[in-house]
């Protein structure tokens, strides 16, 4: 199992009596794209946030490329340097321009020179289609543009793993596509990714593996076809039924 980029064993997370993650084993291979789906409150985001230590496990362990995550400043910082994270609310730094958002961490953490960081930042902004927004402040960017800057910001640290926490959930529907496109490109380039999302089409097209979480356990996992078309667990089937009902609602809304 040396091929595992992420290795989570017996992960348990509880807030008081509330068990959010119940002894989860979860692995992500190098270059794999794993998509976490499931009803809200299932623990998807919590599991994702445990991978870079934003949430602390109550019990169990997380390893990135065999390096154990410890809840100490030094270990956390070292793991996080290698793990990029993209948030639902973008969380760009509003007092910095798009380029400054991207160049900050490489200069502060990786000790890159301002020139190196800037060259790389400009290249990254180009790759997400925002070459003309280098000096724009986040407040002047659309949600989709902000999220693309946020992805570029994470990539500036040369991560070997990218975590996406519902990256399109806060976006207007017409802006979702541009963000998914950037993520798809990233997957094609071989980036290891863990994505929490409600975008089933993205899961179907990009995921190597779909993981269905429900009530703090992995109810089902496998290829997109296996999980989304032929679920075997009762939880999987009920989630699928719920999804189909939602899809139907959306179609009806569109037809109005």
């Amino acid at each position, binding site marked *: 199992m040396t091929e595992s980029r992420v290795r989570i064993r017996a992960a348990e997370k509880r807030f008081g009596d509330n068990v959010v993650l119940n002894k989860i084993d979860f692995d992500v291979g190098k270059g794999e794209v794993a998509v976490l789906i499931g009803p809200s409150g299932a623990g998807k985001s919590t599991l994702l946030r445990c991978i870079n230590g934003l949430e602390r496990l109550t019990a169990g362990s997380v390893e990135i490329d065999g390096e154990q995550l410890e809840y100490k400043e030094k270990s*956390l910082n070292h793991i996080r340097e290698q*793990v990029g994270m993209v948030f639902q609310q973008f969380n760009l*730094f*509003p*007092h910095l321009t798009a380029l400054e958002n991207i160049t900050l*961490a490489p200069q*502060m*953490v990786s000790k890159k020179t301002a020139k190196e960081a800037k060259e790389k930042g400009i290249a990254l902004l180009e790759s997400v289609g925002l070459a003309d927004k280098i000096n724009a402040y986040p407040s002047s960017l659309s949600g989709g543009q902000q999220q693309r800057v946020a992805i570029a*910001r994470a990539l500036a640290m040369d991560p070997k793993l990218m975590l996406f926490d519902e990256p399109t959930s806060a976006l207007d529907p017409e802006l979702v596509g541009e963000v998914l496109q950037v993520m798809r490109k990233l997957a094609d380039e071989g980036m290891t990714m863990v994505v929490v999302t409600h975008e089933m089409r993205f899961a179907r097209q990009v995921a190597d593996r779909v993981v269905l979480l429900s009530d703090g356990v992995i109810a089902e996992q496998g290829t997109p076809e296996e999980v989304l078309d032929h679920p075997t667990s009762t939880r999987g089937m009920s989630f699928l039924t719920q999804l189909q009902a939602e899809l139907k609602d959306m179609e009806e809304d569109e037809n109005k």
Partner: protein
Amino acid sequence: MNDFIDAFVSSIPIFTQGLLNTLTLTGLTLFFSVFLGLIVLALKVSKYRVLNWIASTYLAIVRGIPLIALLFVIYFGIVSIIRVDAFTAATIGLSIHSSAYMAEIFRSGLSSVPKGQTEAARSLGMNKLATLRKVVGPQALRVVIPALVNQSIIALKDSSVAAFITVEELFLTSQRIAAATFEPLTYYTIVSLYYLVVVGVMTIFAHRVERHYEKRG
């Protein structure tokens, strides 16, 4: 009216010295109270209970005592142990008094920055200090500028209390002249004008700073 203008003009040299002392006292107070306020804040948000308790007790005591009582305790109390001049005692007292409010202002600034900002910075591998310096601090500072200006204005006006422990600042100057000339109305009006002008200049400056930050959206 002419009498008033004459009084104003002829008292300018005397008041200038008082004004300089007031500005120096206020400047030192602001410097030390920001410094002290940040220390108190650091204790207050520290993970050690004892330090939290020390900060809370300090804030409760300082906010619970009238400024004039605090100055008297320091001046007449400390003078009996070690010799300090009135100006030093006033600086210490005013700084302590103001630091409680500074700590509160900085705390509100920090808590105004969304948690997602810290999470984003920390996710990039930035340590706590770098996150504070480059991400949370600058955003908190923008939020607290109006409150800081307000506190500076209060500190300027509060410095007049130093007159009661014989610091030769603006207000004591006006008291001396009023007593010597038997014209309290004239000279207390004049000294009020001095305060008003300085506060006006500070306010204009503050608006400039705020607008500078607003531009960046």
